[in-house]
């Protein structure tokens, strides 16, 4: 269940990101990688406590040690101001508008997904590409977040089942195990 996006927006976003990072051979597409969940978690970051902005550390548990990435870190007052502004927009609040109004990502996704149309997911690829190209700024925003969601740590909501890393032969976070000296210096 998405927390910020509607089901319909979530479906549109998954389809849009699948055009930006499409499935190919061993590489799953953005939809299968859970990129729409990544974006939804980011847009809904402040519905979690602590907000899901900075994952914890030092280890995820995937390479040894206790898993702690899921223990997101509390934000300072200034960090909260910055991330609320970025996500929610400035909403006319003077504290968020010291350099003028800011349109937040929530609004940009709402408008951008609306612009793609509720029937976007059912369109043929050519039509989907045409609609995405009609709004280059929104396409760029989706692409940026799709890259994060496809290849970032799964605790942020994407990279489902580590499939993004697996596809590209990337081990991901490796602490505290690390790599041996031979793995650094030798030819694979």
């Amino acid at each position, binding site marked *: 269940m998405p927390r910020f996006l509607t089901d319909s927006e979530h479906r549109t976003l998954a389809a849009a990101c699948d*055009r930006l990072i499409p499935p190919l051979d061993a590489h799953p597409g953005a939809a299968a990688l859970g990129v729409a969940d990544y974006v939804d978690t980011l847009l809904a970051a402040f519905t979690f406590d602590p907000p899901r902005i900075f994952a914890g550390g030092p280890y995820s548990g995937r390479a040894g040690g206790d898993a702690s990435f899921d223990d997101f870190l509390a934000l300072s*007052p200034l960090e909260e101001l910055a991330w609320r502004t970025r996500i929610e927009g400035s909403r006319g609040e003077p504290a968020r508008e010291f350099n003028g109004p800011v349109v937040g990502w929530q609004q940009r996704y709402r408008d951008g997904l609306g612009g793609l149309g509720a029937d976007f997911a059912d369109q043929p690829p050519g039509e989907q590409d045409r609609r995405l190209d009609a709004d280059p700024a929104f396409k760029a925003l989706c692409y940026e977040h799709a890259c994060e969601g496809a290849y970032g740590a799964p605790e942020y909501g994407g990279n489902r089942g580590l499939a993004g890393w697996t596809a590209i032969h990337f081990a991901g976070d490796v602490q505290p195990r690390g790599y041996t000296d031979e793995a650094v210096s030798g030819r694979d």
Partner: protein
Amino acid sequence: MTDAAHATLDCDVVVVGTGPGGATAAHVLTRAGRSVIMLEKGRNHLLALDAPFGPLGHVSNDEIKFTRRHFLGPDPLLEPRTFRIDDGDGDRRWTGDVNNLPSTVGGGGFHADGKLPRFREVDFRARSELGPIEGADIADWPFGYDELEPYYTEAERLVGVAGDHTANPFAAWRSGPYPMPPGPDMFCATVTAAAAERLGYHPYRAPTGVNSIEYDGRPACNNCGFCAFYGCPIEAKGDPVGLLRAALHTGHCEIRPDAHVTEVVLDATGRQARGVRYLDAAGDLHEVTASAVVVACGAFETPRLLTRSGIGNPDIVGRFLMYHLQTLVLGLFPFRLHAHRGRAVTHLMDDPIVPDELAMAAARDAGLPYFRGGIVEHGGAGMPIMEAMHLPSGEMHSRLMLDSPMRDCMAAFTMQGEDLPQATNRIDDDPRVRDVWGRPAGRVTYSPHAHDAACATHWAPRLEAVMKEAGAHTTFWVTSPPLRDHLRAGADPTPTSRHVMGTTRMGTDARITVCDPTQRCWDVDNVLVADSSVFPTSTGYGPTLTIVATALRAATLLAGGDAPRTTP
């Protein structure tokens, strides 16, 4: 100051900034028994501030947190900076992240990957030994390499530098070996270093501030690869956590994070500082009184703090800003190089710093008396999100991510070309853009000297030839900042260099410099600058070991200690 007046002070010395410069000063002063309060604008993710000052566990192999979400600050939404090439750009050309180094306890040392070479003897005497270059203001340093050598030795010991002291034929003399042997070579660098040797160059294993063995109570690096731009989850990087922890252990040091110093407070004469004022996380204003102030905010913020406080000749403070003109030479290989494992760079070469016949001829052709390039770092590319963001979307994206031309098959040379000092390159206040505290954003006005551009243009094809010799099937090069002819409209014109220097120059002439030869401000001599702001020239080497060495020297002199001596 009378004893009674001294007794009412909050501490002996207040240190502003906790990066390598501030941490070094705090270490020296607390070791000498002085009480120190350190004020840091950013948050603390580095170490517990209660004994035994262990790691907080916030640091992780997390590309999103460190490279996408400004975890170590500053967040450009809160603290935007602006940039313009020259007055012709109007008030600004660019707003956002301009050479942001972390704003956090530990400063830039927190996430640097710590190639820590020393400068060479001639670097301190460039004006008298090499002569002037038109349009630049090349100056000698007010002290020489021989005077700094014992401090370099101490800096390497304190930070923990691993290296091979016999490896670099161009290196300055040194009084002893490095404290640790070099760490493992990255495969990618062994391929490019061997090719460089075949072509007559002199690559060597980089001295790095990373433990190759257990050292100073911290473990050896385990090669996780999340190194440059990341903190080290296991504390294998010594800079500056080792220095800060040592200062805290003396019992004479307190670190206050989220403390934004707004001004150095002067007494009624305007010739002595009596402390500083700072805003805490809640926005409340505080004052800390002290008999001396160490300013170590980094070369971007230090001149701004002095200017706000009315310290230094306003016509000079902020001028002579220097970076390194980075020439990035990239080679794509038909096999995997896995440069994302281990430290980010394991080999350097100094050849462009010591010009050969070819370079001298090219310099003459460009109408210049000589070329001074910079160290060439042998490294590779980074992590998957970074690679993905550089690729086009669509099928090409997925195809290229599978093949990984960048992350896994690319080698990179970065030449940190010497940037000649020019008075027109400067930091001042933007007339309109504001930071979250309502104050003017810092603004850079910067354009590299013709020397820097000509030197890059000469060395780039020579370095491409090394890449080809190493087996690259495709090579190309770019500079950062882009040379004027290569600058596309709307493209980011800012230098990616995180080596920022020269904005409160030191020297022997009070009329044309801000700090005296002991790094104290000429007009307010109980204010000492302990960062690369004081550098008269940029040289072609990373600045950080020299920041630590010069801060050691300046803080030792402030504490009344004897200057140590070594001999070649």
